[in-house]
C-alpha cells in the first residue's frame, strides 16, 4: 500500500511538475519569409531568433519559450494569414517580419488581436507613425543615416552625391542625408533610380563629369551596389570614398565580389572576422556557431536582439499575470538595455530612438569597423576606392 502511495505521489508530482512547466512555457510566433524574394534575409533573421530562444531557455529555469515559425512566402496577404494561424496556435506575441510592405499589414493583424509585434526588418518611418500600441522595432532609417553622416563628418567630406533607389526606406535615408548634410554646409546632389535599374553607367557618368563630389553614397540593395560599383570601376570617377548602407559591408559581398569591394564602406554591426567583446556577445557567437556552424551576420544579430527583448518582456508579463492583457507591450516599453547592437529603449511609437549603426570598411577581405571611434576595430583607409 505504501508502495502504491509512493508511486501515486510521484505520479501526482510528475503531473504537477509537467503542468507547471507547461504553464510556464511561452509560445512566441515568428512570421518570416523563408521562400520568395526575401528568403535569404528572412532565413538569417530566423537563425538569430532561434539562437535567442536557445540562450533564453538555457538561462531561465522558470520561464521557457517555444518559437512557432511560419513562412510568409514574402507576400503581404500570406503574412497576415501566418499571423492569424500562429495566433490560433496560441502564440502570445510575434518576432520576425521582413520588408516594410509585409510588416505593415502583418503588424496591423497582430494589433487587431492586441498582440505584441517586434521586428528589425522594416525601417520605413511610417511604420511607427500608425498609432499602433503593440508595434516595436529596434532599428530605423535615422540610425542608418546617422552612421553615414557621422563618418562623413569625421572625414571632413565637403561634397557628396547620393544615388538612391526609389523604394520607401532607401528614399527616406537619402532625404535624411540631404537634409542633415546640407545643414552642415556639405554640397549634396541626389540621383534617384528605379529599383529595376541594372545599368548605372549613365548616372555614374553624370557624377564624374557634372557633380564631381568627394564621396558617393549608395542607398540601395545588394544588386544595386554591385551595379553602381561595376559602372564606377569602368568610368573611374575621381572620388575619395564610396559608401552604402545595409547588406554591403559583409563577408558575403567580399567573397562574391572581391574586385569591387576593397575600400568600400557600409553600415555594419560587427567586424569580420567577428570580434565579440562582451560576455553576452561571446555567448551569442558561440551558440550561433554551434547551431549553424558559421559566424553570425548582422541580420542574425538583429533577430537575436529583438527576440531576446521580447522573451524577457513576456516572462515579466507572465509573472505579473498580464501576458494576455497587453502586458508584454507594457513590459517592452519599460525596458532600457544595453544589447549587442547598443542601447535599446522604445518611445511611445514603439521606435528605438537610441539606434545608431556603425560603419565598416572592406579592407583586404576583412570588414573593419571604422566609425564610431568607441566601436572601431581599426583605422579607416581614406582616400580609398576599389579602382
Amino acid at each position, binding site marked *: 500500500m505504501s508502495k502504491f502511495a509512493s508511486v501515486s505521489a510521484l505520479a501526482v508530482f510528475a503531473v504537477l511538475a509537467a503542468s507547471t512547466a507547461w504553464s510556464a512555457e511561452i509560445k512566441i510566433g515568428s512570421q518570416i519569409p523563408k521562400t520568395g524574394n526575401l528568403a535569404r534575409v528572412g532565413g538569417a533573421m530566423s537563425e538569430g531568433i532561434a539562437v535567442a530562444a536557445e540562450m533564453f531557455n538555457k538561462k531561465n529555469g522558470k520561464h521557457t519559450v517555444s518559437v512557432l515559425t511560419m513562412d510568409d512566402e514574402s507576400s503581404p496577404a*500570406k503574412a497576415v494569414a501566418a499571423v*492569424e494561424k500562429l495566433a*490560433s496556435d496560441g502564440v502570445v506575441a510575434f518576432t520576425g517580419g521582413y520588408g516594410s*510592405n509585409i510588416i*505593415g499589414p502583418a503588424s496591423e493583424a497582430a494589433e487587431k488581436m492586441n498582440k505584441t509585434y517586434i521586428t528589425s526588418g522594416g525601417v520605413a518611418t*511610417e511604420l511607427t507613425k500608425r498609432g499602433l500600441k503593440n508595434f516595436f522595432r529596434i532599428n530605423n532609417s535615422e540610425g542608418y543615416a546617422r552612421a553615414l553622416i557621422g563618418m562623413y563628418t569625421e572625414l571632413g567630406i565637403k561634397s557628396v552625391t547620393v544615388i538612391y533607389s526609389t523604394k520607401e526606406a532607401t*528614399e527616406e535615408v537619402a532625404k535624411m542625408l540631404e537634409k542633415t548634410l546640407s545643414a552642415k554646409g556639405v554640397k549634396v546632389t541626389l540621383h534617384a533610380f528605379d529599383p529595376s535599374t541594372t545599368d548605372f553607367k549613365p548616372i555614374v557618368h553624370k557624377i564624374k563629369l557634372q557633380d564631381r563630389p568627394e564621396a558617393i553614397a549608395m542607398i540601395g540593395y545588394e544588386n544595386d551596389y554591385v551595379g553602381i560599383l561595376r559602372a564606377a570601376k569602368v568610368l573611374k570617377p575621381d572620388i575619395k570614398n564610396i559608401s552604402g548602407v545595409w547588406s554591403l559591408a559583409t563577408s558575403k559581398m567580399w567573397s562574391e565580389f572581391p574586385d569591387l569591394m576593397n575600400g568600400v564602406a557600409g553600415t555594419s554591426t560587427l567586424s569580420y572576422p567577428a570580434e565579440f567583446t562582451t560576455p553576452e556577445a561571446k555567448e551569442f557567437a558561440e551558440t550561433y556557431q554551434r547551431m549553424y556552424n558559421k559566424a553570425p551576420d548582422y541580420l542574425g544579430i538583429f533577430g537575436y536582439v529583438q527576440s531576446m527583448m521580447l522573451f524577457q518582456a513576456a516572462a515579466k508579463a507572465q509573472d505579473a499575470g498580464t501576458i494576455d492583457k497587453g502586458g508584454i507591450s507594457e513590459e517592452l516599453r519599460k525596458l532600457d538595455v544595453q544589447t549587442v547592437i547598443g542601447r535599446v529603449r522604445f518611445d511611445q511609437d514603439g521606435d528605438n530612438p537610441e539606434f545608431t549603426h556603425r560603419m565598416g570598411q572592406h579592407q583586404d577581405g576583412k570588414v573593419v569597423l571604422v566609425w564610431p571611434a568607441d566601436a572601431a576595430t581599426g583605422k579607416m583607409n581614406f582616400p580609398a576606392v576599389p579602382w
Partner: protein
Amino acid sequence: MNKLKIPAVLVLAYLVLPLAVNGNDYVVSLIVAALTIGGIALAWSMLGNLGGMVSFGHAAFFGIGSYASALLTIKAGWPVLVSMLFAGLVAAASSIATMPALRLRGPYFALSILAYAEIFRIIATEWKGLTGGAAGILSIPRLPEIMGIDLGGKIGGYFVVVTLVIAMVGIYAVIRRSPQGLALKAMHDSEDATRVVGVNATMLKALMLVVSAFFAGLMGAFNAHYINFLEPDYAFSGSWTTLAIVAAIFGGYRTLWGPLIGALVVYLVDQLVFKAILPQGHQIILGALLGAMVLFSPTGLTPLIAKLTRLQRKETANAAH
C-alpha cells in the same frame, strides 16, 4: 437539378461555410484570399472565353481599382463601399486606354496588355504626390460595420468577397446567355467567321474588356480595404495575373464556375495541405499537379468532374436496367 444548384450554392456560401470556419481566422483568411484570386480569375476568363482574348495584364486593372478606392477613401473621405464600386468604374475607364491593343490577336494582344500593366505600375510609383510613390499607402480604411456586422472583420470580409464573386458569376451567366454572349463565344472559335455574319467583333470585344476590367478593379478595391496596405509593386504584381490564369485553367476557364472552383482548390490545397507537408518549396507539388491536370484534362477540373459524374450516372442507369 439545375434549379437546385443556385440555392445550394447560396446556402453553402452564406450558411454552411461561415458556420464551419467561424472562429478560425486563419482558414477564413485563406478562403478570402482564394476568393479574391477567384474574382480576378473570373474577370480574366470572361475575356478569354467570351472573345478569345488572352490577357497577361489583369494586374493593371486590379492595381488601378486598389489605388482608386484607397485614395477616394483617404483623400476624398468617401465611404468605403461607394469607393469600391467607383474604383471598379475607374478600372473600367482605364481599360479604354488599352483598347488600341484590341487590334492585336493572340500573343501580341497578351504582351501589349502586359506592357500596359507595367506602364500603370510606373505611373503609380512616380506620381508620388497622389499615390505616395514606392512607399505606398499604409492603414487604408477598413470595410465598415453594417447592421451590426463588422465587414472589416474576418467573417465580414468573407461575406463581402463571396457576395462580389457570386454577383460576378450571375452577371457572367447573363452575358453568356445573351445574343452578344453567343456571338462572343463564337468569336473565340473563329473571329473571321463571326465578322462575316455581321457581328461587330471589335465593339463586343471592347465591351467585354470594360466589364472584365470593372470586375478586376472591384476585386482590387476589396483587397485594398481588406489588407489595409498598398504599394505599386504589390498592387500591380504580375502574380495577380498569373495566379488567376492558373486558377482559371485549372478549374476550366470556359465554364461558369470553373475559375472560382479552380482558385479555391489551387490556393486552399496549396496552403492547407502542401504547405503542411512541405513548409518550404510546397509550390513544387502544386506545379506537378497543374502539369498533370493540363496533360490529362486540358479543359480543367470542372469539366472533368462533370464528365466523371455523367459516367457514374450512366453506369448506375445501366446497372438498373
